[in-house]
């Protein structure tokens, strides 16, 4: 597979799923949505050191529960103008893994999405 970003070795991990018909929500900034809205934290901020593995840092965060997405949006910096879009991922969009956040505010529907370079053809985007 060719990925939107350069991934480290053995990334994505083995226990991923093909996202055929997978619906989820993503926080994006650009209107209309651009490729950069699907960049990972690592791609957006190459100089920062993250507390997750490099493979995870190279994934895009999505949530399958709209209420959880709204909770996250509610604490995002307003001036950065995030909004929620719904995504329907087809098989060619990449690979996903359920990676729930188990901190105090649980984000049980959090998934990591490793995005394929030609994901556009396999993703349907709906504004919320």
């Amino acid at each position, binding site marked *: 597979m060719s990925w939107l970003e350069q991934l480290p070795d053995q990334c994505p991990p083995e226990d991923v799923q093909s996202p055929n018909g997978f619906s989820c929500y993503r926080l994006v900034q650009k209107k209309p949505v651009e490729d950069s809205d699907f960049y990972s934290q690592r791609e957006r901020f190459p100089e920062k050191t993250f507390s997750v593995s490099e493979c995870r840092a190279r994934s895009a965060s999505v949530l399958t529960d709209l209420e959880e997405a709204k909770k996250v949006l509610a604490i995002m*910096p307003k001036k950065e103008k995030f909004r929620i879009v719904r995504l329907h991922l087809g098989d060619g969009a990449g690979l996903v893994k359920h990676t729930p956040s188990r901190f105090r505010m649980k984000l049980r529907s959090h998934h990591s999405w490793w995005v394929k370079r030609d994901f556009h053809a396999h993703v349907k985007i709906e504004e919320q």
Partner: protein
Amino acid sequence: MNIQIEVKEILIHFEVPRLFIGIDRLTTSYICLLIEHLEVSDRFIATGISKERLNSLLSGHLDLREVFAEPEVNTYYQFNISDYSARSISMRRLDGFHFPEEDLPDQGVRFTDDEFASGIQEDAKRYSRPILYLGVEPSGRVGETKVSAKRLARILDGFQDVVKYAYKKAIVEKPAAERRLINKEEYYTWDVYGTEAASFNVKMQSRLSGNLLGQTEIVNAMSILDEVISSIEDFERSAEYLVTYRGHFVSKYLETLRLLSKTKDTLYYSWIPSAYEDVTTTRITYRQAKAFVDHFADRTELGVETVTYRGCFDEIYVSKGKWIFIDEEGKEHKGNAKSEVITLEEITTSVPYVIICSEVLTDGVLPDDEKTELWLQEIKRL
């Protein structure tokens, strides 16, 4: 001035930690919020938070926005993180800082403390009836660990009165015979059965035991109360509620809000109708209470309860401005009349009338020993 903190607990993690508790070497807690993604680092704002307030936040009683919009001490700190694996963070104090509106979290971000909610649920199951945890958050000082017994008692008493009159509004449409059966103290009374550690939370259960689902009529009173409080910042909608529920309920509600606005305490409660339902959490800050009381200060008429009786006057004491009325069910009502409102001279005993009175609450010796006075407002001969 710089302060070193370490991360004690991450509260919200989405891609990076966005909200966490930091602790300094004196064990003072700070709550830290990510407010800007910069190219090489993320910018955070922090403010001190007492254990009690943190408990309120983590148990879902306190809105996250309030933690930053109305901090206990108006001191904020700033720091940047570029390396999330770092152990220690150096914060710089921001003098004269006002938290920009655009950086505040939206209203409505609350934690749901699974342990707290399941505690209430367990109690509802154990006692087979509705459960209420009510508490106050003393305002003003970080680390306030005491509240005067008198103040707590007055708030509890005020809350119980509000529930009582909400209950009476809840049953007002029921047929008279049914209303008589259920208009009793056990239907609207919360009884204390414990307290919660490290908080000012008082645990209460409905005095009446529940039906098969563990519910009692007090649920209807609590629903009215939740509905009214949910609009506390919407004065237009509140005005409608005050008209709908005018009388003793409004009078007691305003009295409790007045008390909170003076003591500067925040009142919060979580309750569950039965073990099979969700916990509802409601909160009134003293600022909300004060704004509400100020706004409705000149609407005292909404606190006047009006009662109507049909029947006959039994005795009239014109010079004393007093009367005795026997209603259609044979119940005796004693009351007063002000000569500037109504004259008693023309009233004939043993002739049917409809009378409209304002009912005023007067305190008895015991907390539950509430008495009323009737003041004649209108009479109509039938």
